[in-house]
């Protein structure tokens, strides 16, 4: 879960060491913070686990998740760790294989959001003036458009795919991050190191993305994670109600089959519960990461080391 935007050293070796050193220090600091903050540690543990399952899980699944058997709605047994659904399909292998789709789309949408919000936020905050005005209006307009209803309607016109939903959720979720980043950039624009970079004739895009951006990684990470949770829930929610692509395997589609098959009312908890719990768990892991980042960014939220002895301006 740690952020390492393509090792900066490979990008431009000759450039001033300032930002690469800063980024290096930042990464070292992030590492120590990951191990220092309990929430971040637990959160990255959970998210890391699901990522591993998404990547390697399907390799270890022995049963074809789509294969119909005659064990209809069978409770958990050694043969079927989490039982089967009404088609006799193995719930456990569906759960493992479905991780990839659920997690993958969330991350993709999170990345899209990150890209849009960083670009709009930084550009708008850095340049100010007319560009800022225009972007601010766009940001504020998008901020009030609810994503789920739009996604539902979009699904009706375009194809019923996870892609459509993820895209819509991404397109409606960037404004929050953009707004926060804009405010940060605005306040950072007048700091000394930016003035110094400008005076030394550094190119604007370099200032924006290599001087300012590294200082806002915590906000960017927070908006990435928030969107990831949103997409996870939005996609699963829509798939739950049957707006998904029935040919794929994902947690939401599993829930849909449990919903339409009245799994709960047959008492088949093993069919209905696991995907929901996985979604909540993964969401909790991401949320923990977010809370941890909040604590890192605002030390007052930490229980330790509150209100150090104060006093201004040293003598001598």
């Amino acid at each position, binding site marked *: 879960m740690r952020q390492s935007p393509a090792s900066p050293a490979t990008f431009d070796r000759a450039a001033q060491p300032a930002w690469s050193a800063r980024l290096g220090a930042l990464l070292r600091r992030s590492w120590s913070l990951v191990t220092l903050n309990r929430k971040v540690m637990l959160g990255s543990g959970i998210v890391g686990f699901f990522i591993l399952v998404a990547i390697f899980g399907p390799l270890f699944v022995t049963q074809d998740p789509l294969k119909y058997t005659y064990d209809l709605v069978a409770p958990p047994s050694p043969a079927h760790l989490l039982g089967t659904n009404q088609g006799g399909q193995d719930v456990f292998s569906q759960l493992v294989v479905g991780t990839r789709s659920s997690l993958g789309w969330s991350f993709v949408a999170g990345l899209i959001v990150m890209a849009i919000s960083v670009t709009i936020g930084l550009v708008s905050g850095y340049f100010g003036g007319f560009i800022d005005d225009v972007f601010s209006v766009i940001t504020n307009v998008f901020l009030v458009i609810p994503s789920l209803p739009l996604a539902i309607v979009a699904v009706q016109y375009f194809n019923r795919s996870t892609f459509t939903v993820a895209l819509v959720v991404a397109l409606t979720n960037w404004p929050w991050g953009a707004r926060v980043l804009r405010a940060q950039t605005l306040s950072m624009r007048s700091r000394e190191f930016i003035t110094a970079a400008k005076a030394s004739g550094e190119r604007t895009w370099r200032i924006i993305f290599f001087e300012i951006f590294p200082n806002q990684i915590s906000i960017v990470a927070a908006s990435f994670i928030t969107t990831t949770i949103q997409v996870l829930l939005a996609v699963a929610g829509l798939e739950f109600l049957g707006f998904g692509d029935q040919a794929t395997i994902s947690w939401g589609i599993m829930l849909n089959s449990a919903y339409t098959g009245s799994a709960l009312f047959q008492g088949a908890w093993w069919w209905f519960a696991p995907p929901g719990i996985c979604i909540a768990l993964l969401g909790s892991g991401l949320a923990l990461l977010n809370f941890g980042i909040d604590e890192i960014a605002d030390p007052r939220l930490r229980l*330790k*080391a*509150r*209100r*150090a*002895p*104060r*006093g*201004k*301006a*040293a*003598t*001598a």
Partner: protein
Amino acid sequence: MTDASPLLDVRHLSVDYHSDNGTVHAVTDVSFTLHRGEILGIAGESGCGKSTLAYAITQLLGPLAEISAGEMLYYGAGRPHPVASREPCSPSAMERGRAASKADQREQRTQPALSDLPSPSADGEQGSREATGGLGVGPSALPSPSADGVGPLGVGPAPVDILRLSPRRLRALRWSELAIVFQSAMNALNPVMTIGTQIMDVLRAHRPAMTRAQRQDRAAELLRLVGIAPERLKSYPHELSGGMRQRAAIAIALALLPPIIIMDEPTTALDVVVQREILNEIVQLRDQLHFALIFITHDLSLLLELADTIAIMYAGRIVEQGAQRDLYRHPRHPYSYGLLNAFPTLTGEQHAMYGIPGTPPDLRQPPAGCAFHDRCPLAFSACTAKLPVLQPWPVATTQTVACHLYNPRLHATPPTTAEIAASYAALAEGRTSR
């Protein structure tokens, strides 16, 4: 300005902060006595523990701080406020440059005493402080001394230890006996509440018998007292200038005419001109209202103009304490000298200015012996081995100092001020020539 009777006696106070990477001994074994009407200045570099001391006295320390030792005896509880027992100040002096007080037209209103104040005295003296419906500065609002039958001030009821009060008693004592003005009024004033409400809040909590109109009048009066137009009662903090905000904070502090006010760097966040205005205001108010003041600052030069007594803190301890005049003429502790010369004094006299080399020590692991030894130009062998304690020096003056240089058994002849100056100069030259 001070009279002899003690008001607050802080004894062997220690405050620790518990953090993951060790315990910070922010204040260690601090003792001092504050007298009625006295201005005690506490000076030191940032991180020396002076703000922690202020928070400890006001019982505002955060959850991670712990008062590990000491007591704070308060002698004022249940006794009449000095104002009431003093000659009534002349009206002209009171109203200097202010609008006429409405208190004049108001009849005296008697209010119930704060029954839950820790007062063993049942002689009815308490009533005198509560008796003033107005601010207590207008002549008619002041009860005459004779009517009160106030006894000699030195003989009071038994003191209470502020640290051992029940929450209820502490809440009653707060602000009515001990108020605080914070460094930045912008942060200390509630941004979503008008100045008036913030003053009246205090009155509502501590003077429940006052009516709404009375509270309103008194709040207006308080603003006038600190030189703000009463219309500003309806203003929010962000609508006031920095100086006005700090004045408003002082007005809130004065709301109950507490015998003690603590000011934690009250002028640091202001520009020099406003800073001067506020300082004058504070001195003037003290002369009118006779509260005792603990003034905390990193700027020793302010204290030279303001304070009656000055305590110098270093690494959580008081290293020197004395009357302002004595400390100014003869700073005994090398650190005091260094601090004194770190600022150009406003009263003239050109000093050669040398900074104190080095940085304050890590309070998690204070150095052995004197905490200042590695920055001290006059350190000798005993300084690294033995902790100096605060002791009177020389006997003739008011000063106490915690330095082995003044211990005849360790150091034969104590240095003169000129010698300390010379040692700093030598140190500075040594640094530049290297």
